[in-house]
């Protein structure tokens, strides 16, 4: 499409439409909503990691001041369990072992925080007061915490269906070819590493309000969700057995998600169900402490990775073996994260011809683990970029040169990897060069010496990542076990005056869709940006949708909008042809006007819209009135954003404290709709990745207690922990979606952890340090230095 540059179109760094309401404190988050007659729910949670429930006595609580109801599993046993959305098969062909995930614990509790009862009262304080009167008789069972020990004979079983606590034992790749390559390799680098468990911690805690109308039989759920349609589907079909048309799910403004608000949680089902029992609204808002015990957590892999190289440094094969922690229950997408979202990324940006990956998923007495920003891909990138750096160290090569030597070359696209993916486009040299230049990689030694003079150890670390985004082609996903489609839907409604409402199934919880999607519409339809309204987050207003995760919004949700607009333009051409008495085939659409090709005869978009709604002199026999179209877009492939990140650190050798002194990111996200928003997404991802590398860790003790269960012990990155970031982008266009976009939401969190750890190991190279586990706390670094000094 040719058109004049549109100041509010694709590529403009427009200020966000959503900001004024947030800046004035007028956002409407779930906890800001209060319904008439609302009651408050408080969940009484297990203090034990693993225990049988012998008896629950709720009599005193039921009589307490203000109490409306107290429910336990005796009341909810008829409800279905919370479902898992992806079936994984073990290498022996058997399906994964799924224990029931009840909304309230049935017979036993499986992690600290497992909800046992819910108390509903006139005020939240009363509900909490009454919760202290519930008496529960527990018989404690041994907690299952360590993934290796969990498989031992005699270890307690979290679920009876999985006596050895193995949920599945999955593999991908050609094992024989990999083994053969290792047998002939000139060099093999082996590394054991941990991908530390994280809490997503969006600053808005989860909340849910259930409402019920006995007049219409309609259930309404307000919830802090990234995907209201998915919640409606899962909750209606699996848990409450209510037909979808009787459930409305509204996800209003949502204060961040990062994955943790994708899943269907017990509290959502419970408040929806209880509101119908009580015929009054029931509201629940999580505390932060509660969030640490009930929001799905992320990562938590224990991995052995081996890389085989020939004498020239070419990668011959990669072998990975991982234990992935599932926690006590299978969360909505838990099973797919360490498998298809992980194993398939092991080629990275490299031509490694043979790859084999084996992942065992283990149940433990801990909070469920599911996707957290990046989801499987940060784990893959971390192990790959760490083992490559170690291989460079062991073989005396420059880590940049070793990467370059193995990069997939621009002429090799489309590139089939040995782990199932076909990369459509990319230029890995280009992003690497961009990053090296920005970081003045060549000048690093000077900086290292200058730091040394100040008593500091300076290190530089490079990491090149790739991610598979734009999740996902439904046929592929279905073949791999997905229990749903992964398309996106959009309705574009042109109003009679020519303004446009877009109903999208994507959801914004910080990403700024109200702005970027409006830019796409402004660009494509040639109408003013402020004439476009983006509607999302309400199943009553939106056709259908799969929501926002996996950096899919613009690539999949945006493409659905483009497809719907294509239909609008096609219909508009018919109408305009009639108005201009021209042949439909001669019509073009440019800069917001329908034209007869080769003439100056034209009708504006607004005129055509008006005619569609006031169909006088209108071809009613062939064209319906109105101008509204819905489209479903199912992606043809994943998209493959990629880039190179460079981190520079300085370490205080006396204390082990690390300071990030510079961070450079060079990304290829394909076409960019709004560069300001894209940069913001990268910044946020980097902070989370650096958080993983240096600060964040969910630590469980042997009894299964979460020791870092509040911000007092779980270290969130703060402003003074981070530098200003230097970010840049370059473009290779995605070849298979109409916008040429790849997505940018997760890159920062994927590429940064290995860049940071590589920099730290580099800083410590004189001490012979070869690896530091995340989070690389001062204490760990001090210990590494000290044990090197002892040697």
């Amino acid at each position, binding site marked *: 499409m040719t058109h004049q540059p549109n100041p509010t179109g694709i590529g403009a760094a427009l200020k966000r439409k959503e900001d004024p309401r947030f800046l004035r404190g007028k956002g409407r988050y779930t906890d800001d909503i209060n319904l008439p007659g609302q009651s408050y729910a408080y969940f009484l949670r297990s203090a034990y990691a693993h225990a049988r429930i012998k008896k629950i006595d709720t009599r005193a609580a039921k009589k307490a001041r203000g109490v409306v109801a107290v429910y336990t599993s005796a009341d909810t046993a008829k409800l279905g369990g919370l479902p898992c959305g992806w079936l994984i098969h073990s290498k022996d062909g058997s399906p994964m072992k799924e224990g029931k995930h009840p909304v309230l614990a049935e017979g036993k509790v499986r992690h600290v925080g497992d909800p046992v009862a819910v108390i509903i009262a006139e005020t939240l304080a009363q509900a909490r007061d009454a919760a202290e009167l519930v008496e529960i008789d527990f018989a404690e069972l041994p907690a299952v915490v360590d993934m290796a020990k969990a498989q031992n004979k005699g270890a307690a079983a979290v679920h009876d269906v999985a006596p050895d606590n193995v949920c599945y034992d999955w593999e991908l790749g050609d094992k024989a070819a990999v083994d053969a390559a290792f047998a002939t390799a000139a060099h093999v680098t082996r590394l054991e590493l941990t991908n530390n468990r994280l809490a997503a911690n969006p600053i808005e805690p989860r909340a849910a309000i259930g409402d019920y109308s006995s007049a219409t039989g309609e259930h309404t759920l307000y919830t802090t969700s990234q995907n209201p349609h998915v919640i409606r589907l899962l909750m209606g079909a699996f848990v409450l057995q209510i037909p979808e048309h009787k459930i409305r799910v509204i996800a209003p403004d949502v204060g961040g998600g990062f994955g943790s608000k994708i899943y269907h949680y017990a509290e959502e089902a419970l408040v929806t169900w209880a509101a119908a029992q009580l015929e009054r609204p029931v509201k629940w808002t999580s505390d932060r402490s509660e969030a640490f015990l009930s929001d799905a957590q992320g990562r938590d892999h224990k991995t052995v990775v081996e890389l085989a190289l020939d004498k020239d440094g070419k990668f011959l094969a990669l072998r990975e073996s991982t234990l992935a922690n599932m926690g006590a229950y299978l969360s909505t997408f838990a099973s797919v994260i360490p498998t298809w979202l992980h194993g398939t990324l092991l080629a990275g940006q490299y031509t490694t011809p043979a790859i084999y990956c084996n992942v065992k998923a283990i149940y433990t007495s801990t909070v469920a683990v599911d996707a957290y920003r990046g989801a499987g891909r940060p784990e893959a990138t971390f192990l790959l970029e760490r083992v490559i750096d170690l291989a460079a160290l062991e073989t005396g090569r420059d880590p940049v040169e070793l990467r370059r030597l193995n990069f997939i070359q621009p002429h090799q696209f489309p590139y089939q990897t040995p782990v199932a993916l076909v990369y459509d486009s990319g230029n890995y040299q280009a992003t690497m060069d961009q990053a090296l230049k920005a970081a003045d990689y060549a000048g690093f030694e000077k900086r290292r010496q200058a730091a040394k003079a100040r008593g500091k150890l300076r290190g530089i670390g490079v990491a090149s990542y790739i991610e598979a985004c734009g999740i996902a082609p439904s046929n592929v996903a279905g073949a791999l076990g997905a229990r749903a489609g992964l398309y996106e839907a959009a309705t574009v409604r042109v109003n009679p005056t020519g303004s446009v409402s877009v109903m999208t199934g994507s959801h914004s919880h910080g990403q700024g869709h109200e702005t970027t999607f409006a830019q796409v519409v402004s660009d494509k339809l040639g109408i003013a940006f402020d004439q476009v309204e983006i509607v999302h987050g309400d199943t009553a207003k939106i056709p259908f949708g799969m929501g926002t995760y996996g950096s899919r919004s613009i690539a999949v949700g945006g493409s659905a909008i483009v497809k719907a607009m294509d239909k609008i333009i096609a219909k508009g051409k018919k109408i305009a042809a009639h108005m201009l008495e021209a042949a439909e085939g001669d019509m073009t659409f440019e800069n917001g006007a329908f034209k007869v090709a080769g003439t100056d005869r034209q009708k504006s978009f607004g005129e055509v819209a008006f005619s569609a709604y006031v169909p006088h002199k209108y071809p009613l026999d062939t064209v319906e009135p109105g101008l509204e179209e819905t489209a479903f877009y199912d992606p043809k492939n994943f998209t493959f954003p990629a880039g190179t990140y460079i981190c520079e650190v300085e370490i205080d050798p*006396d204390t082990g404290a690390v300071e990030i002194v510079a961070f450079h990111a060079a990304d290829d996200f394909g076409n960019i709709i709004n560069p300001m928003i894209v940069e913001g997404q990268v910044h946020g991802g980097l902070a989370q990745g650096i958080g993983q590398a240096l*600060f964040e860790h969910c630590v469980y003790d042997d009894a299964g207690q979460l*020791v*870092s269960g509040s*911000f007092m012990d779980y270290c969130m990155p703060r402003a003074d922990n981070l530098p200003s970031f230097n970010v840049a982008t370059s473009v290779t266009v995605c070849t298979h979606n109409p916008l040429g976009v790849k997505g940018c939401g997760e890159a920062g969190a994927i590429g940064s952890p290995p860049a940071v750890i590589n920099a730290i190991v580099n800083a410590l190279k004189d001490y012979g340090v070869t690896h530091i586990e995340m989070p690389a706390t*001062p*204490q760990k670094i001090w210990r590494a230095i000290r044990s090197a000094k002892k040697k």
Partner: protein
Amino acid sequence: MHDFKYARPASLAAAATLVKKGGADPVFLAGGQTLIPALKMRLRKPSTVIDLAAIKGLDGIAEKKGKGKDKGLTVVVGALTTHAAVAGSKLVKARIPALAALAEGIGDPQVRHRGTLGGSIANADPAADYPAAVIALHAEVVTNKRSISGDAFFKGFFETALKPGEIVTAVNFRVPDKAAYMKFAQPASRFALVGVLVAKFGAEVRVAVTGAGASVFRVPDMEKALAKSFSAAALDGIKVSPKDLNSDIHAAADYRAHLIGVLAKRAVEACG
């Protein structure tokens, strides 16, 4: 939070009466930056919360000349003085800059706007900063009943010499020749993982350590060495035993012991 009666007496005497009548467990409220989080977690269940805010004369900063053999200057800080007020005080900055810097390093701006000196020492959190100042700066804790030598004030893990119902009214810090406080923060809470305050009064040197043990403590070996020669080098080779030091997910005892040495040296260097 459990509900409680709230009272706001206008004088120390009225507060004392309230304590007597206050039922099972009355508790004082100063800045609330420790008490309110504890109440929210339902860790405490007081019958009455006695807010000290309306009592006149409990905040403010002044200096006082010593008498008798203690001729030295003292800086008197009212118990209700906020951390921000201490950090910003011209007088404190001039007389004991280390104390102003310590206060500036407590928590975050919002916490410093509310939290008070009296609340901090009465609470005696092993990771709090002020206890190091109370010990190293020869402080004297004044209450509505008596005056307690700083050395006798902290009794252990969250334990002080205060009797039930006793109210801290002020703390007198002796002005040192030189002093510096070095803090290595626990990364998440930003309380002191280890904090070391070194102060020199003529021939006497005091080294107080917070964050590392069950309660603030002094390091006599370091004090002796520094009294002989007030230089970082004088601390070379002096090891603090990790025995009895805290171990947690952020730092094991041996790391804390090591940090005491590093921070003590840095504090001496900062004294100039």
